[in-house]
């Protein structure tokens, strides 16, 4: 193969950077110096678990978990001798089969990547690469359209807000377009605060120009001159790449005065969010940009009429904007053909938790949870049994196995008691305690509640206290009913989305996993064997006396001679689980039991 056709792509998303992908890029550049092979870096491919990822084009070879010392092999064998380096090729975690080419990997072949169209393909810090991929074509077309026509195209496409609420984007744009007031503002919500979600981060890091293009089109449609991207300070790489993209877009005349000689002026600045989950709520985000505590206010008036500094303001999520250029370029009909009747286009999920293939995926709306988890995700990690899938983050819920055939779309998920959210999807297995999951989310919302309204501030606190009591062995009859009563109150009485949805994780786990709550309260047992208060560790007769557990036990509860059966003193054990962690998988002699009497320890 002629090397001047060859390009080597190195992923430099946050995940791959953490596993030293910049060093790999450096090594490749050094070793290929003077050759015709192009070496470039890209944003996230979505399969972070297999990182660092290196792709050789045009063959489409997918190398996973590459180390710096592997670079010489790739250069000598693949580039110089045209032979694929088998041992570095992606290995399917479930079938153990090696798959040479990128697009044959089931994780990718079943996806439909619209929002993520350029992520992993282009150099996000080079606008020329974005332009070659077709970015800003939508803007050129939009500038020849009337603002009214743009809004009706967005309306006809059926696009709904990708931040989770699912309100019609076209209607929102329409309200803002017809609102009186000057100046108008366009805001992008990149305050991705959901724990377990990194969709927006990956788009910003991998294809920042797509978001800018969507915002510029929106600004032209509603008549705005200034835009802000509200991005979490916890995403330093995203902020850096966005800033580079903004500077390059200004140089090329896509931002600033008289954009592409159309007479239209618009510019974008980044606002660094300072870490408050509630700022994902639109009125709180606006209040925060104005320099205040980010607390929500009641609506109406809606931001479309009175938003930033009291002026008409359009606020959309990162992924919503990234969809816009595609709709303008390809037409609303094309977009409306993808997805279901009421949910058009695709859904982007951060698929994580106890799943074989963790990562960022994009599927057409309407595929089932089962297809996402088993066909793309490769099923539950380590062959464990599936227990539940959590979508929608702290606002969503946990759905059990019987709901796996639920189609992924806004309305079906709400009907099931969960919600789409902005796209976190966490798979839970048999070792996950559902009461602990509910406690975990409540702990989060209780901390993040801004404190403005009483139902949320005190309701989340009370629910959390009850949940803590249950997982720590102080649960009593009546707790479940009390939880349900408070949850209803918080749902009905809270001012903003944070409070209104905070009880969802509790309500769905109660609805589908009530038996686990009851086991904690009545039987003093944790069926998942996770809650420390309810478990005891035991060494079984299969112990070979290797001594690992004895050496690692922090409280010296384990004793025994080398190569002889060890014993564990329940009076000393603190249930830290180290013995379980270090016991060699072949031996597997530590058993966890639940629901048994345990020696009562004196308070320290």
């Amino acid at each position, binding site marked *: 193969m002629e090397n001047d056709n060859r390009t080597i792509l190195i992923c430099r998303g946050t995940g791959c950077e953490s596993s030293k992908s910049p060093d790999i890029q450096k090594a490749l550049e050094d070793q290929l110096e003077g050759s015709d092979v192009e070496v470039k870096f890209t944003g996230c491919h979505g399969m972070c678990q297999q990182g660092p990822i290196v792709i050789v084009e045009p063959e489409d070879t997918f190398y996973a978990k590459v180390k710096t010392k592997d670079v010489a092999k790739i250069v000598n064998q693949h580039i110089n001798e045209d032979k694929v380096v088998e041992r570095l090729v992606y290995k399917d975690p479930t079938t153990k089969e090696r798959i040479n080419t990128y697009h044959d990997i089931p994780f990718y072949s079943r996806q439909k990547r619209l929002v993520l169209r350029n992520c992993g393909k282009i150099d996000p810090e080079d606008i020329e690469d974005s332009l070659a991929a077709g970015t800003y074509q939508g803007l050129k077309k939009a500038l020849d359209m009337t603002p009214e026509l743009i809004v009706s195209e967005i309306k006809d496409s059926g696009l709904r807000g990708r931040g989770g609420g699912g309100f019609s984007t076209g209607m929102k744009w329409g309200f803002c377009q017809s609102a009186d007031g000057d100046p108008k503002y366009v805001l992008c919500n990149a305050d991705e605060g959901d724990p377990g979600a990194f969709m927006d981060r990956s788009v910003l890091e991998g294809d920042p120009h797509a978001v800018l293009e969507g915002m510029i089109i929106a600004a032209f449609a509603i008549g705005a001159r200034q835009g802000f991207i509200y991005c979490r300070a916890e995403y330093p790489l995203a902020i850096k790449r966005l800033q580079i993209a903004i500077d390059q877009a200004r140089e090329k005349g896509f931002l600033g005065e008289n954009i592409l000689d159309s007479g239209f002026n618009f510019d974008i600045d980044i606002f660094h969010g300072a870490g408050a989950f509630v700022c994902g709520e639109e009125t709180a985000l606006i209040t925060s940009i104005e320099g205040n505590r980010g607390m929500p206010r009641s609506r109406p008036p809606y931001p479309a009429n009175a938003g930033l500094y009291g002026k008409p303001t359009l606020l959309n999520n990162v992924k919503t904007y990234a969809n816009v250029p595609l709709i303008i370029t390809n037409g609303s009909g094309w977009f409306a053909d993808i997805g279901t009747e009421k949910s058009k286009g695709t859904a982007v999920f951060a698929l994580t938790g106890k799943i074989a293939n963790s990562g960022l995926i994009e599927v057409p709306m309407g595929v089932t949870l089962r297809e996402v988890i088993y066909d793309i995700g490769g099923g539950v990690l380590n062959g464990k049994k599936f227990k539940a899938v959590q979508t929608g983050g702290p606002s969503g819920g946990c759905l059990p196995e019987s709901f796996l055939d639920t189609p992924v779309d806004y309305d079906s998920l709400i009907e099931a008691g969960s919600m789409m959210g902005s796209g976190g999807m966490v798979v839970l297995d048999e070792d996950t305690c559902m009461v602990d999951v509910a406690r*975990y989310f409540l702990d989060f919302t209780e901390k993040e509640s801004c404190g403005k309204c009483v139902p949320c501030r005190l309701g989340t606190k009370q629910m959390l206290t009850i949940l803590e009591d249950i997982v720590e062995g102080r649960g009593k009859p009546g707790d479940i009913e009390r939880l349900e009563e408070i949850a209803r109150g918080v749902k009905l009485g809270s001012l903003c989305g944070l409070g209104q949805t905070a009880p969802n994780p509790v309500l769905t786990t109660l609805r589908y996993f009530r038996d686990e709550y009851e086991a904690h309260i009545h039987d003093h047992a944790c069926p998942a064997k996770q809650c420390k208060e309810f478990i005891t560790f035991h060494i079984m007769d299969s112990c070979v006396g290797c001594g690992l557990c004895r050496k690692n036990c922090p409280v010296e509860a384990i004793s025994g001679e080398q190569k002889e059966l060890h014993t564990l003193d329940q009076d000393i054990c603190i249930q830290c689980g180290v013995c379980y962690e270090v016991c060699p998988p072949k031996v597997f002699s530590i058993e966890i039991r639940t629901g048994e009497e345990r020696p009562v320890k004196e308070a320290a």
Partner: protein
Amino acid sequence: MEKSLETIVTDIEGRRENIIPILQKVQEEFTYLPEHLMAEIAKFTNVPASDIYGVATFYAQFRFTPTGKNIVSVCRGTACHVRGAPRIFEELIDQVGLEDEGTTEDMEYTVETVACVGCCALAPVLTINEEVHGDLTKQKVRKLIRAKGDENGE
């Protein structure tokens, strides 16, 4: 000599909507928000000091005490939680000699938890001075801290 506010915030105007960027700039300089500068920020922006404190205490990013040489943040995102983040946190504070989040007496480490680093596929995750470390076990945490200690000892 302690730096004055004007030398830190050179390119930001003293207006209410700039309070958060100003606080971020000051914290970047000192690793925390020193008390004597809070009053100066109030004067500079013409906003009551109580409001400045109100804003600063609302957001998780801001701190009022100096940090240690190394800032270790344990992710408490959902994916990390179900894959054992609480145990990672326990091991970490045990290794550096803390009871909970905070800074060690020798000012070597500040340990904190963060909502989500966004590296869920590598869960459980922690960051040391913005460098991400994933797929953690208790043993890996011990190694990381030992390596940091050696590095600092040199």
